[in-house]
């Protein structure tokens, strides 16, 4: 009886089981773009219940076979499109269903992989990971990847402090974390932790950039991540249909030119005779005019800036080959870039990039991925700063003939202006050979093994190797200024070469589990080992015995010198990260990390980091009219900054073989420790808008600072110590909007806003200047309780009341002073005469001390704002990026220093109303021998039309007989740095110091100016 019951029961089960019901039903159809109707090759169609799926093939079709009868939910997805879920699809027999997908114009469906345990939709994040995709990146591709982030997300400062071709832009994420050093984030390219800048990375290869802005998101990267993380992924072939191959050939040609010139004094203050020549005294000196007012035209005048800055060519040739074999995919690309820049006689920068990425599956459980990139570049560097061509050209007078000849008949006479001791900038550019060559290899190989549905292992090894060789050759016979005459020198040669090598090995285990209760968990544990090496050797010599051969052996033995420098850094890190959510509504993420590094003091080899984050997707529980997604989140995380290599060691310096104590070692030196709390809200509303608001409070303590030791106790100058705290508060808003979305027109806009405040909250050493120190003239001051990035210097008295704050003027008579047309107090009766001069401001402080230096500027902007527009109209596409900084100041040392030779436009009195004209002595008092003073602090606000692109795409059906050859041809025009509206008087308000922390040391000091580039683009795809 029991057997019968079991038999009957089994029969019933069989009759109603899916297996018995299974039929060889087939689901076929097409997936197309909702607007254009274009077939979306590579889109995925997936049946949720049966976990069956298919990829749209080269013909635009998909096919899923062996589907049992039933009612199903089907999910259709494709990169760049909004995922569509279709419920209640009845399949009984073969069914044909076409799907259309809407473009994800606001990138709401994006997933991220950086800082999390695995691929995670942005909607499920409990902290901010900003992402920009191929569309934004490739609208106006930057020459270098570092510039690609400019203006594209809030809280990201990208400063191109030098326009010299081949120079990487500096990136700072949110507020500063380091009192000393720079604020550069950790950069990862396809899993390779970079040891050098992004200058060698081809922006055309980039598929996406993910940015973790601070410790609240970047804790996963531990002691290198307090400045945040920028993770770049390059193109691969995974989104193509099986068997598809796509070739893209892109060529861009254009011209670069200087965007604006510096205001220059085209006048002088000397007497002219009737024929317009200078009147000379018996000693041959020019005779100043009576009032020393610079309002006389030069007998012969040239625009030396136009003669130094000359438009140059810009060119890129790019070819890429993407393919999907079904079992894997590949991407191969080559780029040739050449940009001349804007300087007379300088070849600029050229680079060739080769990239090969490969993913290959072996069976169902094993996957091998490799990413490799090789680049070789050649740069003709140009000296910058005081003494550089940019310095010299501005010091010369307009009557200097810089195309004249030297005594031996060679061009560009070395001393074109006998009144000025500066040499001809063209002569150096034309006759000195400067050559920087680099080769770089990035490689990452990883093996992923999934033995079980819920368990996977991954091992990876990556390498970043840079080899460089630099030389500067000044040939024998090079003209130079010697006292009041010119002479030919015997030449010199400097050569430097070396390499940097960063290797990283990581072993990772990942566990995933989805519980029936709706709890999804994913845990990842990793061990990471880093080994970084750097080795540089340089040699120099002067006075060649014979000319024409740039070899050190031929230099005078007594002038030769050699240097070498080498470092090694070893680091091991372990971490575990747990991501959990309940039905994707309540999201929790937690991680622990322990870092050990040879850069930490011997008694502090390890440091620990953590992050805890949570988010609540309110609209998963509550339906709110007009709001599609509302998420609140909070994240508290920690990360670090490692000390420089040499910081922990006791050092003795050797000069001429004689030792002297250098720095005192510190066995207790720890990494700087940054803790960030981020609170955020994400809202998608009215099916048109995507709003993200973030507030971040970041405190970085244990700042790593080289602290001078009073009286050099024990002989040591200084010691690296953990000696300060820096706080930064950031408020960010990002708003994406679909302005128009119709079959012919899609118009989207993105608005980014940020406001950053940074304060030095603690210093364990006396206040001091930091940053560039040119002619003993530092500008930026560290002082406890004050903002980070302030300028200290002299002020000029602006009122009689101010004058009286100086006890020396206690009995002064107000009748003896007036305020001049510049707003400064001067002695009455001196205005417009050689006796007119500004008066330095002093006051007595609370301790009764007379002080004469004050806070005169602050680099920190009130806020930054950018607006990008993407308009696609039929086959036309238009992109524009407006970027603005409001507030913040720059110290214009370029302007100040040329006051020495009376060359700045402020000194040109021609055209000025009578009564406002001033003698050159007045401007000399403002110059003040380069002492930092308020006159040269300028408003850094600007509005830039940073990027513009207009393209037209010919689709296959428009190409006639070429349609057999090409899928599409795109032609267009691009512009970079097209227009700048600013009150800043220098070449470009996007200027900064030439070394160190360029985001905070905003000083204009004769850098290669940024320039505009306009190009034409043609791109073939087949």
């Amino acid at each position: 009886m029991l057997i019968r019951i079991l038999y009957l029961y089994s029969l019933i089960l069989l009759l109603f089981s899916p297996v018995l019901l299974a039929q060889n039903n087939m689901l076929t159809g097409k997936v197309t773009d909702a607007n254009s109707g274009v077939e979306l090759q590579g889109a995925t169609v997936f049946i949720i219940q049966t976990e069956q799926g298919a990829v749209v093939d080269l013909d635009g079709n998909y096919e899923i076979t062996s589907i049992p009868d039933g009612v199903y939910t089907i999910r259709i997805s494709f990169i760049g499109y909004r995922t569509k879920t279709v419920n209640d699809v009845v399949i009984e027999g073969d069914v044909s269903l076409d799907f259309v997908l809407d473009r994800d114009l606001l990138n709401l469906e994006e997933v991220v992989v950086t800082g999390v345990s695995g691929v995670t939709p942005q909607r499920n994040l409990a902290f901010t990971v900003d992402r920009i995709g191929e569309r934004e990146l490739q609208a106006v591709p930057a020459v270098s990847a570092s510039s690609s982030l400019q203006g594209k997300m809030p809280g990201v400062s990208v400063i191109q402090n030098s326009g010299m071709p081949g120079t990487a832009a500096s990136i700072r994420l949110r507020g500063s974390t380091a009192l000393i050093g720079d604020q550069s984030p950790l950069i990862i390219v396809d899993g390779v932790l970079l040891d050098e800048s992004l200058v060698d990375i081809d922006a055309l290869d980039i598929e996406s950039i993910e940015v973790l802005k601070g410790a609240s998101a970047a804790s996963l990267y531990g002691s290198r991540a307090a400045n945040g993380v920028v993770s770049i992924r390059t193109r691969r072939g995974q989104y193509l249909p099986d068997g598809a191959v796509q070739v893209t050939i892109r060529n861009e040609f254009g011209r670069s030119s200087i965007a604006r010139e510096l205001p220059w004094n085209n006048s002088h203050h000397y007497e002219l005779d009737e024929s317009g020549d200078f009147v000379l005294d018996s000693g041959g000196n020019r005779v100043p005019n009576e009032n020393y007012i610079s309002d006389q035209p030069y007998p012969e005048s040239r625009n030396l800036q136009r003669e130094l800055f000359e438009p140059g060519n810009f060119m890129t040739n790019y070819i890429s080959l993407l393919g999907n074999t079904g079992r894997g995919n590949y991407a191969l690309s080559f780029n040739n870039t050449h940009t001349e820049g804007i300087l007379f006689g300088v070849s600029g920068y050229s680079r060739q990039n080769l990239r090969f990425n490969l993913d290959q599956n072996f069976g169902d459980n094993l996957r091998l991925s490799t990413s490799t990139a090789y680049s070789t570049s050649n740069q003709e560097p140009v000296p910058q700063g005081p003494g550089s061509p940019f310095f010299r050209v501005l010091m010369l007078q307009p009557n200097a003939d810089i195309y004249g000849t030297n005594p031996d008949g060679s061009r560009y006479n070395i001393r074109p202006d006998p009144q000025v001791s500066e040499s001809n900038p063209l002569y150096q550019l034309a006759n000195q050979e400067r050559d920087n060559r680099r080769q770089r290899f990035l490689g990452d190989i990883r093996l992923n093994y999934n033995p079980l549905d819920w368990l996977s292992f991954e091992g990876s090894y990556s390498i970043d190797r840079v080899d460089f060789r630099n030389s500067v050759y000044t040939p024998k016979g090079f003209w130079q200024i010697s006292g009041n005459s010119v002479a030919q020198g015997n030449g010199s040669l400097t050569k430097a070469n070396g390499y940097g090598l960063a290797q990283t090995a990581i072993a990772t285990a990942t566990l995933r589990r989805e519980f029936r209760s709706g709890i999804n968990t994913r845990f990842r544990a990793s061990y990471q080992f880093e080994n970084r090496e750097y080795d540089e050797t340089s040699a120099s010599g002067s006075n060649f015995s014979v000319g024409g051969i740039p070899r050190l052996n031929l230099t005078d033995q007594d002038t030769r010198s050699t240097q070498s420098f080498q470092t090694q850094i070893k680091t091991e890190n372990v971490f575990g990260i747990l991501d959990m959510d309940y039905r994707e509504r309540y999201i929790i993420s937690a991680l622990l990390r322990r870092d050990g590094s040879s850069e930490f003091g011997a008694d502090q080899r390890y440091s620990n980091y953590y992050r805890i984050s949570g988010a609540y997707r309110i609209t998963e529980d509550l339906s709110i009219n007009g709001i599609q997604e509302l998420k609140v989140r909070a994240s508290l995380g920690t990360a670090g900054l490692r000390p420089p290599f040499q910081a922990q060691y006791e050092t003795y310096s050797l000069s001429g073989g004689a030792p002297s104590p250098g720095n005192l070692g510190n066995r207790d030196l720890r990494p700087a420790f940054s803790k960030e709390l981020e609170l955020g809200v994400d809202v998608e509303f009215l099916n048109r808008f995507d709003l993200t608001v973030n507030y971040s409070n970041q405190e970085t303590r244990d700042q790593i600072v080289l602290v001078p030791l009073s009286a050099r106790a024990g002989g040591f100058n200084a010691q690296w110590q953990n000696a300060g705290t820096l706080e930064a508060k950031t408020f960010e808003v990002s708003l994406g909007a679909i302005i128009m979305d119709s079959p012919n027109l899609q118009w989207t806009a993105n608005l980014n806003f940020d406001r950053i405040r940074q304060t030095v909250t603690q210093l364990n050493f006396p206040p001091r200047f930091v940053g560039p120190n040119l002619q003993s003239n530092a500008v930026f001051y560290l002082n406890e309780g004050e903002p980070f990035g302030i300028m200290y210097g002299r002020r000029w008295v602006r009122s009689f009341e101010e004058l009286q704050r100086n006890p020396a003027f206690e009995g002064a008579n107000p009748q003896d002073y007036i305020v001049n047309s510049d707003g400064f107090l001067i002695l009455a009766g001196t205005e417009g005469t050689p006796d007119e001069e500004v008066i330095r401001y002093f006051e007595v402080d609370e301790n009764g001390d007379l002080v004469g230096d004050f806070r005169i500027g602050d680099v920190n902007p009130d806020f930054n704002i950018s607006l990008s527009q993407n308009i696609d109209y039929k086959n036309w596409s238009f992109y524009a990026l407006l970027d603005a900084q409001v507030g913040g100041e720059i110290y214009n040392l370029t302007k100040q220093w040329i006051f020495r030779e009376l060359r700045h436009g402020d000194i040109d009195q021609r055209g000025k109303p009578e009564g406002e004209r001033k003698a050159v002595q007045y401007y000399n008092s403002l110059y003040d021998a380069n002492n930092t003073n308020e006159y040269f602090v300028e408003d850094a606000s600007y509005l830039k039309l940073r990027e513009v692109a207009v393209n037209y795409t010919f689709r296959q059906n428009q190409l006639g007989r070429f349609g057999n050859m090409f899928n599409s041809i795109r032609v267009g025009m691009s512009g970079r740095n097209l227009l700048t509206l600013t009150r800043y008087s220098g070449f470009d308000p996007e200027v900064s110091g030439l070394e160190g922390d360029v985001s905070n040391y905003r000083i204009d000091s004769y850098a290669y100016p940024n320039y505009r580039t306009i190009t034409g683009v043609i791109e073939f795809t087949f």
Partner: protein
Amino acid sequence: MKKLIFISLTMLLLALQSCADLSVENLNDPDRELATQNPGDIEGLVVGGYNTWALMASWRTLLPHTVQSDWGTGTVGNWWVNNGGHVPREEFPNTPTASYRDVNQDFWDDFNGSMANANIAIAAIEGGVIIEDEAYTLAIKAAAQFLQALNLGSLGLMYDQAFIIDETTDLENLDGIELVPYDVVLLEALNKIEAARATIGLARNAGMDSLPSGLIPSLGTIDSRWSAVGSTISWDNFEKIMNSYAATFIVMGARSVTENDQINWQEVYDYASAGIDFDFAPISDNNTNWQSQLLRYLYADWVRPNLNIINLMDPDMPKDFFLVTDWSEL
């Protein structure tokens, strides 16, 4: 769920077990142990100390002070030359916010640094280090003691206060060290000169009759164009140099009429009478070449003699810049 948590925690604990050796040697700069492992290194410390002192005490000091004292004049901005010559005089840049504060700070750092070199060398010698032999060691010690004197004297002349840190100071307990007034510092400089003199006496007795030749480069390769003493410096000539500095410290240390009146002029006379009576212009270590820079910056290029000085030699020349009415006549 329990299984997942168990596996996760186990993996995490395993991962947290660190295993790598993270020690890395600094192959760029020696530490004290390496830099002073040979007795000859102690001599090198003294050589380095003299170089540091000489660089600071010569042209770096002279440039700003030359114009400030009105015997030089210049408009170059570097090293406070321009500002130092302003009339009326500006305050000396001795605040942390002053642009040209290096003019003040560099001397402090390097005089104290040079002092430390001497201290380390003397402490090592008194600790038993023998450099070649006893006589040679005493000679090095004497040179180091005079280096102490030079640095303390320079500090006392330039600053209102300074630390007196010598080989007897406990470097582990520096908190108790206090700044002392300049007159005390200068007095200690004279004490160090006398200590050096006593050590020279011991060196003489031990068989050394001149400054060790190894130290000569620190005082300068004695270029025949600039020195009448030849390529060696006898103890007699060395003591003359010491005496001249002693006289300088006493005379220049007075900062007011009152202090000037309190000078023991007989003592000054005695030192000066026994002081340098030969041309002596070392060119330092032939590497930093500070002597040529001194010539370039001070006499030939950036700073020129002040009219005040020229007037002393040629009364027809105006005494003051402001009295010049016709530059073409100069």
